[in-house]
């Protein structure tokens, strides 16, 4: 019997280990929720200075690369769509098993929002109502993970991604693509790319929003006892682990704010009151400052609801405000354990101009006009809806990736996603590139344009200035 018991235990251990090893290949890393936890595990232990905990509003509201560039820190965004404050507390506990942050930013939308799951985050049997995007198995297998699963009666179903995603072989093409995608970019870079979305509300969206806003109700916006209880638990953790807390309110659409301003003011006051009782808890309500942002800052999404998510323009604005607040209020001594360079780290730095190469680039075509390159400026006209730029340059290495940056000032640097390179001719190393983006994704003003050439293998960036300045009217 002892022989059988020993062999059985060994076999079970072997099987579980195999399941967990293979489980990694089954996780759907297309979701930002999975990537959020992946970024936590990719980060060297005790090297993250700032942690953001929240839901989709902060995932699609804060760009950690901008915070890192401006505050010289290392920031992780562990925001999972639709999570309540209870799930945020669990996510923070998971984070604290790996990192010793100096500042934790808690996103306040789960406290402010009127969804039932936010105010009443437990079901009748006392189990957490989980967000459909939050899978326990995104978290690394460990004591905290097991504890959370047992508490919520999800040990078997939710811990083993291998079982939950076992049907992936039924669509091999999709699966192969997913596995291929996870090579190369880190989770943090992946999130950074995923949140650069540019399609904002259009007239139909605005009309649709106007038609539903009557259903919004200030009375439903309150911080419930359960929420207060878990907020208190988070504050307890901040004292236990010695970090500061920043209660951040990511902006909503201004029409939304106007409709339920009373609710926003009421909840904001409540949050401030709670924060005022603790020395290490701060608040930053961007909504209060701007009374929401206009439609150009919000993503055009399939479902029009109380939830609005920011476009890249909105993210740049929100993150810069947050980063400036951090710089002013917290003197964070960074761990400096992650020294990789990003375009943000270069371009949000005042000495970026010293790094530019001598070869400047001419614009060949701007908004379908050819003659513009002769001038020192290119300018939009009011009726323009898009900005379209065509140009060419000779890269130092054909494998290098390129991006275009639009620099307005130290609080607004728009860096495009990677641009596809088009080979000009067989005899020349010169490559052409085109970029097109909605005009409303840049604020009015004057912009310096910089072509960023990235050598991905050496994490090195070359800046090619574009001769023409952009005047956005």
């Amino acid at each position, binding site marked *: 019997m002892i022989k059988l018991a020993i062999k059985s235990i060994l076999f079970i251990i072997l099987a579980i280990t195999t399941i967990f090893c293979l489980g990694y290949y089954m996780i759907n890393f297309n979701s930002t929720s999975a990537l959020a936890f992946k970024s936590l595990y990719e980060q060297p232990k005790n090297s993250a200075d700032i942690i953001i905990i929240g839901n989709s509003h902060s995932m699609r509201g804060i760009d950690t690369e901008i915070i890192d560039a401006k505050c010289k820190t290392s920031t992780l965004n562990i925001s999972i769509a639709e999570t309540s404050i209870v799930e945020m507390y669990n996510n923070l506990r998971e984070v604290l098993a790996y990192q010793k942050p100096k500042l934790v930013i808690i996103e306040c939308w789960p406290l402010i929002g009127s969804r039932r799951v936010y105010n009443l985050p437990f079901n009748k049997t006392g189990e957490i109502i989980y967000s459909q995007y939050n899978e326990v198995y995104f978290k690394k297998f460990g004591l905290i993970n097991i504890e959370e699963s047992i508490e919520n009666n999800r040990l078997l179903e939710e811990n083993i991604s291998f079982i939950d995603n076992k049907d992936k072989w*039924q*669509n091999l093409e999709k699966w192969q693509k997913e596995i291929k995608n996870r090579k190369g970019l880190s989770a943090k870079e992946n999130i950074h790319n995923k949140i650069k979305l540019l399609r904002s509300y259009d007239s139909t969206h605005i009309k649709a929003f106007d038609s539903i806003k009557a259903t919004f109700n200030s009375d439903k916006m309150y911080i419930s006892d359960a929420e207060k209880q878990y907020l208190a638990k988070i504050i307890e953790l901040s004292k236990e682990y010695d970090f500061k807390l920043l209660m951040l309110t990511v902006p909503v659409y201004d029409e939304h704010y106007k409709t339920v301003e009373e609710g926003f003011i009421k909840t904001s006051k409540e949050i401030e009151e709670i924060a005022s009782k603790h020395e290490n808890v701060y608040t930053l309500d961007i909504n209060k400052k701007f009374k929401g942002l206009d439609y150009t800052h919000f993503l055009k999404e399939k479902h029009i609801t109380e939830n609005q998510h920011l476009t890249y323009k909105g993210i740049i604005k929100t993150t810069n405000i947050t980063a400036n607040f951090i710089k002013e209020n917290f003197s964070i001594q960074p761990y400096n354990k992650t020294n990789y360079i990003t375009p943000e780290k270069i371009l949000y730095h005042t000495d970026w101009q010293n790094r530019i190469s001598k070869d400047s680039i001419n614009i060949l075509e701007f908004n379908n006009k050819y003659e513009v390159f002769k001038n020192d400026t290119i300018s939009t006209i009011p009726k323009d809806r898009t900005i379209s730029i065509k140009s060419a340059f000779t890269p130092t290495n054909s494998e290098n990736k390129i991006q275009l940056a639009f620099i307005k000032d130290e609080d607004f640097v728009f860096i495009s996603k990677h641009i596809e390179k088009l080979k000009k001719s067989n005899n020349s190393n010169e490559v052409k590139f085109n970029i097109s983006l909605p005009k409303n994704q840049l604020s009015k003003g004057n912009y310096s344009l910089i072509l960023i050439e990235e050598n991905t293998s050496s994490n090195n960036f070359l800046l090619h200035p574009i001769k023409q300045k952009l005047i956005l009217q």
Partner: protein
Amino acid sequence: MLFNSIDFAIFFPIVFILYWIVAKKIKLRNFFLLVVSYYFYGSWDWRFLFLIAASSILDFYIGKTMAKTEVKKKRKLLLIISLVFNLGLLCYFKYTNFFIESFVNTFRLFGSTLEATTLQIILPVGISFYTFQTLSYTIDIYRNKLEPTKDAIAFFAFVSFFPQLVAGPIERASHLLPQFFKTHKFNYNQIRSGLLLMAFGLFKKMVIADRAAIYVNEVYNNVDDHNGTSYAIATVLFAFQIYCDFSGYSDIAIGAARTMGFDLMKNFKSPYFAVSLTDFWRRWHISLSTWFRDYVYIPLGGSKKGNFRTYANLFIVFVVSGFWHGAAWTFIIWGAIHGVILMSEKALLPVKSKIANHSLLKQIPKWCNVLYIPLIFMIVCFAWVFFRANGVQNAFTIISSSITDFKISDLKNIETYTIGFTINEFIVLTSFICLLLIAEAIHNTFGLFSILQKQFLPIRWTLYLVIVMTIIIFGVYGDGKDAEFIYFQF
């Protein structure tokens, strides 16, 4: 509690450990088996427990009383009571509505406007299996082939023994009951082979049967929406679905019993390798076919009362066997088809042996018999159409379409294979069916388990791991997909 459920995955290891703790004390062990078996059965519906308890009590006392008397009439009367009670239970729960509907339909043929009012009767799981098992006990005592037991607990545990309670193998008291009085020693190799058999059974059920069911159900439940080629494929897949479903259950049952030191009879022996229909019935649901042989065919006279009676007896046995499977005309026709073909086989036997004895044909090696395998498989598949179809009309539609509407060009069309699932699922399913047939061929020739036992530990463990991973990755389960075994309904 299904074998392919989380509940059983928790239930079985607990039972296994506790069983071996109490194994040395036979009475305590039998009592323990009785309790866990009743828990297992009651997990479907606690009300079913009254039926099995009533059947067990009656047959226990009938057996005991029968042994005390030598008066033939009294013994016969006791046997009749047992038969009436057990078959009465079976008839009431399984066939009442069928008889009402058939009665009303017959009257309608003659212009009657009678309305069929069926009763709300829940069919107790496995009733056909345990009633046959207890009947074998009383019949064997009546025939003086078996001594009745005085140990009620052991008898109750024998009737309700949880591994084979709901879908067999239908054990004979003479084989299984004495095992309840023996001490079972903990045997590592026996337990290992039992666990391996259980894993193999789960593989058959979850990887092959339940995935084949997706295609089969889609086609058979929507008869008007598909073409002849799809019907043909669905029928072949059903042949493997029902085989893997039922033999998978039997494997798990035999394996689970073996881990506790019990030996259950073999129920399947690669039936699709049969070279005649007679051979098929020696390989398919062996416990039922031998039951019918011993308790119906032979009492009817078997093959000893002339050709006509032999054919008639064969036909009766298979019609009854079809009816045992389900209260529907499709099952009766299924049984009748088998009966008619077996009669033909028997009738042609002298002709066949004359031809086989011809000097030229004598030189043909025996292995050439394998050429019969596809023919027998096709005949079996033809009969399966009636077994699976939702009504006689549908069965005829499927058969006629499979013949008249079968197009080779449809086989090149990917849509033929993607009914209810993706092409990858179809490829995986057919690959595993091929793998199963190869494994069975090797097993029949060399004995797969003995080959395996001779291998080094890393090779053995790798194979075990592959089986477990295959079930986890390619099995159908989760989100309420834990499918019942087909034979539970019988």
